[in-house]
C-alpha cells in the first residue's frame, strides 16, 4: 500500500465544496440519540439491548471493514480516485462513528447496571473490564489520531490550493489507525461473545 503517494486535487473551481458534516445525517443521528435517552431513562431492556447490539455491531463491523478492507483499497488507489472517494466517504464517517459509539457505550453501561454484571460476584465482570480496556485503547487511538486526521483531510481538500503533503500524511495516519482499531475489534468480538455465553 502506498499511502504516502500524494493526492493531486483538481483546481478549486472544478471541485465541489465538501460538506464536512453531512447535514442530511443530523436528523437521523438526533433520532438515534433520542432513542438512547429514552432507553436509559425508562431502563427497558429491549430498547437498551437494541441500541447496544445494533450500535456495537455497526461499530465493530465498520471498524473491521474500514480497517482491513477499505483502508488497503484506499492506499492502492490512484491519487485522483483516492481524492474523490475520500471526499465522499469520510464525511459519512464524521456522522456515523460518533453516533454508533455513543449508542453502544451509553447503553452498555446501563445494561451492566441493569444486569449487575459489574458487581464483584458477577462471572462476567472480568470480561467486561477487559472490554472496557480494549474500548479505552481504541478510543484514545480513534479520538486522538484517527478522527483529527479525518477532519484535517476534508478541511484541507476544501481549500483553494490543498497541500498534497498534508493530505498524504493524514491519509496515512487514517489508514494505519483504522487498521489498528479494526484488529482490536476482533478482541471485542471475542469478549462480547464470551459474555453472552457465560
Amino acid at each position: 500500500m502506498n499511502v504516502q503517494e500524494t493526492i493531486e486535487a483538481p483546481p478549486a473551481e472544478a471541485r465541489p465544496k465538501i460538506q464536512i458534516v453531512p447535514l442530511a445525517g443530523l436528523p437521523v443521528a438526533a433520532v438515534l440519540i433520542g432513542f438512547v435517552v429514552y432507553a436509559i431513562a425508562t431502563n427497558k431492556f429491549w430498547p437498551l439491548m437494541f441500541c447496544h447490539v445494533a450500535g456495537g455491531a455497526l461499530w465493530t463491523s465498520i471498524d473491521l471493514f474500514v480497517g482491513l478492507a477499505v483502508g488497503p483499497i484506499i492506499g492502492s488507489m490512484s491519487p485522483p480516485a483516492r481524492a474523490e472517494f475520500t471526499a465522499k466517504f469520510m464525511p459519512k464517517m464524521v456522522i456515523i462513528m460518533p453516533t454508533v459509539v455513543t449508542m453502544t457505550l451509553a447503553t452498555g453501561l446501563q445494561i451492566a447496571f441493569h444486569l449487575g454484571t459489574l458487581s464483584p460476584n458477577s462471572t462476567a465482570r472480568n470480561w467486561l473490564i477487559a472490554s472496557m480496556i480494549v474500548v479505552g485503547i481504541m478510543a484514545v487511538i480513534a479520538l486522538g489520531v484517527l478522527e483529527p486526521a479525518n477532519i484535517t483531510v476534508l478541511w484541507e481538500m476544501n481549500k483553494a490550493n490543498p497541500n498534497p503533503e498534508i493530505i498524504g500524511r493524514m491519509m496515512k495516519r487514517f489508514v494505519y489507525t483504522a487498521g489498528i482499531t479494526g484488529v482490536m475489534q476482533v478482541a471485542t468480538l471475542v469478549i462480547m461473545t464470551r459474555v453472552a455465553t457465560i
Partner: protein
Amino acid sequence: MNGEQNFPKAVEIVTVSLAAVVVGGVWFGAHATSRPPLLLPTLMLIVGAVLLIVGVLMIARVAGFSWDTWVRVGRWALLAYVIAAGMIEFAFVRNHTRGAPLAVVTGMLVVFALDVPFLIATTVARYEESPAGG
C-alpha cells in the same frame, strides 16, 4: 503555516490527557456498582485537566496560530462530544451515582469532552495559513 517540526507537542500532550481520563473512566466503570475507590480516578482527573491546560497554553504561544479555524472546527466537535459525554453522565445519574463519585466522573467527562475538540481543532488549525503568515 506552522511547520511540523516547529509546532509544540500540544496534540501529543492532550492525547495523554485523554488517555488519563480514559484510564480513570475504566477504573471508575469497573467499580461502578459499589462505592468506587476515588484515589486513582481523582489522580487521573487532575493529570488530565493539567495536561489539557498545558496543551492550551502551548498553542497560545504559537505566533500566527489560526484561532479562527480552531474555533470554527472546535465548536462543532465540542457540541458532538458534549452530547456523547452527556449520555454517559446520564447513565451514571440514572443509576444513583451521587456525591464525590459523581463529581469525579463529571470532571473526567468534562475533560474528555474538551480534549477531543481540542485534538481535532488543533490538528486542523496547525496546518492553516495564518493571516499573519505565522
